[in-house]
């Protein structure tokens, strides 16, 4: 398998050095950028498999970089932030970041999150046994990782796709918050309900004709979510 290429964007050279040393030691290829503008140029020039993005940067800040990258790419983005603010976290996730880590953090934690992000990106070989899922105008082709609603292509980020796939494969069950968090993100996320709320919101905005009255992903209050398949 090819080496995964990770871009680190941070204006603090010590953080850049620290992360790149660790990532290289674990077999990743690393590119770095020191501000938002540079990172946007670099992402367009080089192909990268994942971006680790600092939130507070000169020129173009992390939130803006995230928003702009999401306009044309579904590359997984992990935000690093020195602000432990819950609002920032939700804002970044809403804008399309896949994960959010508050400084200071442990190396093992970061590595686990990188792995989770790559798991979402998905290996076609671990696609579900069934080849597709059809319900009420929505079609998921598991082999091609392609989603259409009423014949229109829907672009999903890897994390969004993972969540949708998990809901679709288990469409006969109600999935609890912690079940979804553990199977889509990983064990260490089981209490991060914000993630689930934000990503279900993102999926609904992309899939549902009327996100306020969802026809696909149903909320079971206090329990979890359920993708209706029974007419």
């Amino acid at each position, binding site marked *: 398998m090819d080496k995964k290429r990770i871009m680190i964007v941070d*204006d*603090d*050279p*010590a*953080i850049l*050095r*620290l*992360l790149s*040393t*660790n990532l290289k*030691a*674990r077999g990743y290829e690393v590119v770095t950028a*020191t501000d938002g503008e540079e990172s946007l140029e670099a992402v367009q020039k080089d192909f990268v498999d994942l971006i680790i993005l600092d939130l*507070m940067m*000169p*020129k173009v800040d992390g939130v803006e970089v995230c928003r702009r990258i999401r306009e044309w790419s579904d590359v997984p983005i992990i935000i*690093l932030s*020195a*602000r*432990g*603010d819950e609002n920032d976290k939700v804002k970044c996730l809403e804008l399309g970041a896949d994960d959010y880590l*508050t*400084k*200071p*953090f*442990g*190396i*093992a934690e970061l590595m686990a999150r990188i792995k989770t992000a790559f798991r979402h990106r998905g290996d076609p070989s671990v696609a579900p046994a069934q080849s597709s899922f059809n319900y009420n105008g929505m079609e998921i082709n598991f082999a091609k990782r392609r989603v259409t609603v009423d014949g229109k292509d829907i672009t999903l980020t890897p994390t969004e796709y993972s969540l949708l796939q998990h809901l679709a494969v288990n469409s006969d069950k109600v999935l609890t918050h912690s079940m979804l968090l553990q199977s889509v993100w990983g064990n260490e996320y089981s209490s991060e309900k914000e993630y689930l709320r934000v990503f279900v919101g993102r999926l609904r905005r992309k899939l549902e004709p009327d996100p306020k009255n969802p026809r696909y992903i149903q909320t079971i209050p206090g329990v979890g979510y359920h993708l209706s398949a029974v007419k």
Partner: protein
Amino acid sequence: MKENETILVVDDDRDFLEIIRRILKLKGYQVDTVSSAEEALSRLKERFYNAAILDISLPDVDGTELLSKIMETHPDIIAIMLTGHSSVQNAVQSLNCGAFAYLEKPVDPENLLSVISRGLERQHLLLENRQLMEELERHNRVANTLLSVSQAVSQSLDLQQIIDAALERVAECIGLEISFVYLHRNDKLMLMGHHGLSSRIAGSIPKESPKDSGTVGHIFSLGKPLIIEEMASHPEHDLEFLKSGGYRSFAGVPLMILGESMGVLGVATSFAHYFSPVNVELLTGIGREIAIAVRNAELYEEASSAKALRELDSMRTEFLANVSHELRTPLAVIKGSANSLLQPDVIFDEQTRREFLVSIDKDADTLTRLVDDLLMMSRLEADALQVNRKPHRIAEIMDSVKDRLESITIKHHLHISIPDSSPPVLADDIRIGEVLTNLVDNAVKFSDDNTTIRIEARRLGKEVIMSVADEGIGIPPELHDKVFERFFQGNGHKTSRRKGTGLGLSICRGIIEAHEGKIWVESRPGKGAKFSFSLPVA
């Protein structure tokens, strides 16, 4: 009604007088009869008559002449002329002089009575009208005064301005010599302003008064106006200053709004028995206007201090968020580097391990500096910074930091020019050394290697101006004030250097201000920056 109506009859025919007197008496009038003009005039001086019946031909004076004299002094009197049938000409003349009517002799009593009754009726109407007009005028005056006071006090939301404007207007509109206002503050009545008092008397007016005793206190606590007609016999002591100023009447009204007493307005004049219920009514109205304006001002003050508190609160929140951010950044490097070394899955080579340790070491220093800066900052904000000011020569201060400055500017050219003639300054040498180090550190941070950094000192009047100039990227004019704010971080600093705490210049400003000096920057983008500060000559 008629019992009070008085009629004077003037005729030289005594029999006629007697008959008329009887007729009129019978009808209930009070009647006086005289037989000469002289007597008539002296009676008129003694008392008021509603009507006069005058014979046109009198022995001493011509009746028309008498009429003129009477009308001059008693314009409201109803005059009825009695004429012989030969003197119709005179009768017409008398009407022109103001007589109500004329009757020809011999007089028909019925006719006379009906003329008198009509005349008196007209007089009633006239007097009533006049009273109404006067009432109206008084109301107008009151309304105008109130309007004027109301306008004056509503011009401002500043309490003192309101009180001053109100007192001035009260004096102007009512022509009162003395006025003063007490307001309810901290459970006491505090003197807020006075008008018209000589400086001698002003010195003895009580600055505060209890809210439920004394003259002022009683007006406040009872919420009712009070008139003192003669100060000399007033037992309370709190108005002693009025007595000693020779003021004799006093009126005080509470400043009431929605049944709540907010203070007291007092006025005084040097006349005794001056204030009538009408005055008090007007003063009560003025008191209400002042109370409304004072309440508005208080509400405004409360609202703006609430706003200021909210702003302070949000600044504090922002400060905490910033501090948290600034602490987390070096902590991330320390934690990440140490954590890297602890990971079981990767064994780093000797060189890399050393790099991690260097990072930990450096960022531990950054953290220490940050904590020091934060402590300094909080000391500055609490005004608790100890500045040990003594006379020092600039050269002496420079010498103490020279080694430090040279090590910072190792890749730059440092030029120091301090004239020997520089006078000593009143300064804390250690603190000023910190300021210089900080400014030079910034200069290095924001300019390229091999450029020049100049430190200069020059005398300007009673101050010495020190400056640190670089040839770096400069600062746009809109940021010249901002750079001195807490946590302001300049953009575009060289990435090879570590970030500062964003507190340096803010601390410099605090230190310089504690020296009663100023700090400022002159710069244009791309043209370098020159930071200067002033210190007082010792």
